[in-house]
């Protein structure tokens, strides 16, 4: 899922300084699961903004709504009646959701409440880790199911580099060296010979470097 975290109240408040009434839109997708932009977070953020503004003697009116998903035009439509009389919309979705809302309500001031961090999974309750760099050409079959693109701080495909020590990455003693993990896994699987194969440079045009990517499934298209 997409992992996001809320910006500071100060940052969010400064984006809507001159507004009297705002709509806060949560998202019931990934950001609900990672506790950043679900129903509860939307209500808490609305209350915090109201309190802050009351203390500043500039009361703020808030309306809240949680969309099923903000990355689908169909669910953005459901916002229409709420958007009309507000000065701004604060989206608690990932960056995709913010853009969908802004695109649909082009005459509204739409601002992000979250920083969209990465795609990953949970480690413990309240702790998430990045696991995929969205490179568009997955190599997990060559690296024992451990992603070198995102879990190696240098995205090395023929690792480990000379900074790996005691299982940790050179950039932090708290960070596992992805290539140590890859080595251990391949060894356990009896496939160390695979790591001797030279991995050629990646085709980054399949990643973010070719402009926004599109995925098409013609078989499910309606017209």
């Amino acid at each position, binding site marked *: 899922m997409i992992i996001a975290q809320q910006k500071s109240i100060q940052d969010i408040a400064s984006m809507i300084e001159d507004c009297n009434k705002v709509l806060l839109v949560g998202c019931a997708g990934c950001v609900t699961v990672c506790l950043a932009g679900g129903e509860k977070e939307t209500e808490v953020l609305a209350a915090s903004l109201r309190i802050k503004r009351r203390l500043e003697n500039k009361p703020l009116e808030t309306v809240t709504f949680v969309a099923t998903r903000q990355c689908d035009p169909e669910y953005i439509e459901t916002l229409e009646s709420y958007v009309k009389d507000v000065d701004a919309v604060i989206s608690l979705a990932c960056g995709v959701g913010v853009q969908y809302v802004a695109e649909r309500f082009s005459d509204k001031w739409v601002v992000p409440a979250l920083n969209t961090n990465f795609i990953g999974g949970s480690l413990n309750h309240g702790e998430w880790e990045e696991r995929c760099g969205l490179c568009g050409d997955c190599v997990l079959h060559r690296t024992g199911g451990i992603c070198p693109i995102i879990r190696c*701080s*240098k*995205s*090395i*495909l*023929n*690792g*480990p*580099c*000379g*900074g*790996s*020590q*005691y*299982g*940790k*990455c*050179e*950039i*932090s003693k708290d960070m596992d*060296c992805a290539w*140590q993990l890859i*080595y*251990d896994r391949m060894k356990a699987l009896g496939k*160390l010979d695979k*790591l*001797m194969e*030279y*991995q*050629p*440079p990646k085709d*980054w045009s399949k990643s973010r470097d070719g402009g926004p990517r599109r995925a098409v499934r013609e078989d499910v298209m309606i017209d």
Partner: protein
Amino acid sequence: MKTESKLEKVLNSGKFAVTAEIGPPKHASGDGMKHHADMLVDYVDAANITDSQTAIVRISSIAGGVHIKEKGVEPIVQMTCRDRNRIAMQADILGAYSLGMRNLLCLSGDHQKFGNHPTSKNVYDVDSMQLIHLVRRMRDEKLFFSGEEIKENEPRFFVGAVANPFADPFEFRVDRLEKKVEAGAEFIQTQCIFDMERFERFMEMVRERGIDERVHILAGITPMKSWRAAKYIGNNVSGMIVPDALVQRLKNAEDPKREGIEMAIEQINYIKENVKGVHGFHVMAIAWEEVVPEIVERCGLYPRPNVD
């Protein structure tokens, strides 16, 4: 000879090669580098010019190479994968060759986190293994990284790489060295050796697999100035091992700097005598270039062979 590199000639002559390191400054004057080059010119076969080492901005390795070449020292241009994509790398490879550089050392590069621009974006479009392979391919097959033909004047570098016997997983370090040799590395400079026992174990595995016959390995030697520096490196630089005994010896020394030089000399002499498969020494006297001549002389590595 496959290239015009003097280092290649020395290594192929079967004599021990000697290389040193000249770190470019954090300002825009090459005078200091030239001064160091003057000091080293008779004592080394070539000198590495680091590429914004520890991710601190400095004069570029190619520009540095021009400075020391002017003083008669053959440059080994270091190229990290951290700061350039494959287009910029090839532009620099062509440029460096056009300026008379003949040795290229391919490495991953220190992560920017500890440098003076920790908020920068790193590139790693290609990794060091790929860089080795592709620079060799530019020379031997006259191809750009993309596979497009280089119609004329292909860059003909003597291609080097690094190996760190002190990083983990230890068992894989020899595999990775072999992979680099397969990819096209012709000379290898090792990380600074402080843990001789581990280095010997590494070299034993290298010899068992005959890798020392396929590549020239230069042992990395660093004289230490103080026990604090030694301890700091051991504790804080990932991929370095500094045994306690070495720290203690410096601590007990009356003149620690002298002791540091003596220890470096002992290491080289020990390797010369006892560790087969080493073809030269890479003396990294970081910010202490002036001690290199004495070390070289007292290890019986002076005068340097004349291969021209």
